[in-house]
């Protein structure tokens, strides 16, 4: 078969995914873009073109402002939290003599847990009259309004999601740890490096590719938070946990403003794309400057 024939065959084999991508990504994207210029609610027989009105309205909306800032606040809480915990878990598992896979599965299980169920459990644990709060209040005089104060609510959401993703990221980091050859450490030992130097000068640079992947994945997660805030706080108090997804959901499915919600979704996707692109570039620059990549 010639090059031309091989090329055709390649296209043919790629066609299922291409069709899938067109049907489920390209068409909805174009459809959403179209909707964002209308006042259509998806069910009315008529609609009007509004030009950029939806975008202007969205850019002025306190809900959208909140979604923008909440995402970054959440990122600063969640990313360090999940990276630290997944490194710790990966280090522990890496150091185990046996049953590494079994423990990894154990840590991975929260990732498979339903966000609804875990949120409801957390809601119970943090309620005013839960045993943990009774003890804190009666024995230590500490009374925290976990889901009612802006910072605490965001912190709780970050903590649940970090718990959920730790096992998944630890899985990636464990494979990173496993790929570092023992001979490197043996050579370092002969050179008399301290454990701290060993971590920063050997482990961290060699782990960087895996860490880079995990960081980008974690940053991506921050732009798609929904279930936990929907269940725990509904975006409150006072928009303190109002994420992009929460804002889009409320407008599209509660207020039946599909056109406006599409405009918010387009803005959200631009913000997400640009943010991840910049962060990725900064991480790459950081890695290159230190000679890790």
């Amino acid at each position, binding site marked *: 078969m010639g090059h031309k024939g091989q090329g055709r065959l390649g296209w043919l084999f790629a066609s*299922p995914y291409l069709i899938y991508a067109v049907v489920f990504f390209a068409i909805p994207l174009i459809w959403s873009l179209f909707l964002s210029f209308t006042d259509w609610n*998806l*069910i009315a027989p008529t609609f009007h073109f509004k030009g950029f009105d939806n975008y202007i309205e969205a850019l002025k909306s306190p809900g959208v402002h909140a979604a923008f800032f909440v995402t970054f606040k959440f990122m600063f809480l969640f990313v360090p939290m999940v990276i630290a915990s997944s490194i710790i878990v990966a280090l522990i598992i890496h150091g185990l003599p046996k049953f590494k896979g079994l423990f990894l599965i154990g840590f991975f299980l929260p990732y498979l847990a339903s966000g609804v169920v875990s949120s409801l459990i957390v809601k119970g644990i943090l*309620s*005013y009259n839960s045993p943990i709060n009774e003890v804190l209040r009666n024995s230590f005089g500490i009374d925290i309004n976990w889901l*009612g104060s802006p910072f605490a609510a965001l912190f709780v959401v970050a903590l649940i999601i970090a718990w959920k993703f730790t096992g998944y990221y630890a899985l990636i980091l464990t494979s990173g740890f496993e790929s570092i050859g023992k001979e490197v450490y043996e050579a370092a030992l002969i050179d008399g490096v301290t454990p701290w130097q060993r971590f920063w000068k050997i482990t961290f640079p060699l782990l960087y590719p895996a860490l880079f992947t995990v960081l980008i994945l974690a940053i991506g997660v921050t732009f798609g938070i929904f279930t936990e805030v929907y269940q725990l706080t509904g975006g409150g108090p006072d928009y303190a946990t109002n994420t992009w997804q929460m804002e889009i959901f409320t407008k599209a499915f509660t*207020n*039946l403003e599909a056109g406006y919600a599409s405009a918010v979704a387009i803005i959200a996707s631009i913000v997400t794309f640009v943010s991840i692109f910049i962060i990725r570039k900064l991480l790459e620059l950081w890695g290159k400057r230190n000679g890790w990549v």
Partner: protein
Amino acid sequence: MKKFASVMIAGALTVSGLAGCSTGNTSNSQSTSKNGVTTIEFWAAPNPTQQVYWQEVAEEFTKENPKIKIKVSPMKESPTSEASIQSAIAGKSAPTMSENINRGFAAQLAESKALVPLDSLDGWDEVKKARHMENTMKGWEFSDGHQYVLPIYSNAMLFGWRLDILKELGYNEPPKTYSEMLDVAKKLKEKFPDKYVWAKADLVDPTAWKRWFDFFMLYDAASDGNKFIEGSKFTGDDKAGVKVLSFVDNLRKEKALMTRQAKDPFETGLGIFTDIGPWTISYWKDKFPKMKFNDTYTLATPPVPDGMDTKNVKTFADTKGLVIYASATKDQQKAAMKFIKWVYSNPKNDEKWLEKTNLPPARDDLTTNETFKDFFDKNPALQPYAAAVPNAIPPMDNAKYNDLQTIIGREAFNPVVKGEKSPDKAWKDMKKAFEGALN
């Protein structure tokens, strides 16, 4: 040959991939009037008891009317029942009819021409007459003069009081007016500083529907059932509104409100006052057997401003009903009305509903019709609900009810509960925000 095989494999993969995306829904045109049998899709509320009821009633109906087949299925609730209906309509897979529709959502659907005005179908007047719901239906007329929803049940929301704790404070019955309630608050905090009158996190949550169970219960009582919004006009009673907010503000000043998330605050006695619907009674029977009517707790209509009549107090009606979708064929719409007529021409069907769900049927004769007497004699805790049905005010019929009710929370009710705004300022801010939302 190789090329042909590759094409076949790729084609098969594509087709199977796309086939996997099918929802399995059949279009209305396919399922109607086949061999003279009209099939209608009925979405029941996602609640096992209601599904069982509709399944049984549909089967009985089909026995008598073999030319109409009713497919009962539960309404999907992911993420909400409203969202699934919206998606179904957008995806041209809406059912013929469904229950579980509140008036506000019906207004949104009606404005989008997604519902059939029931009064435009033959037999509607007979349904109203046969079910004795002419008075009840008056409150359901939409601003365009049509009726889009047949209310199935009307939960006249009541406030529950912890009678056992009230008795410890020296009261034998719940307070009826604002000042009586503030007296209770003072006495409660003196005797039990760790308890609250109203312990409910929703009081500071601006989510739209939460206002039905705090603000509207109090407002309907204080305004004697004022409509609040008529069509696209704010017609609220300023005096009543400010009185409600002042009352809540006074409770806050007495430290009688607890707005933190708490597990079962009323059942544990953390709070002694809360909104209760009839569904709670059967829930308590299973989960909190210690909650006994007229012993642990009692039910009362909302408190009213001082000087107001404390009899026939109005309250909010958590009420949902049946609708017929405009996307259904004429045959299906006709068949759906025939089914409705059949169900509601016999009070035994409402009795069955009451027994299965504990939700009071929306009819004028609930307390006088002998059919229901036995049930209410056996279930005394549900009697106050039946008695309050004529005084129950349904939600507003404005398509922007979500926005409007969020404004009530965000601009008025929530900040007053938190002590961030005076009642007067909160009411003014709310009205100002309405101007933008109603236009």
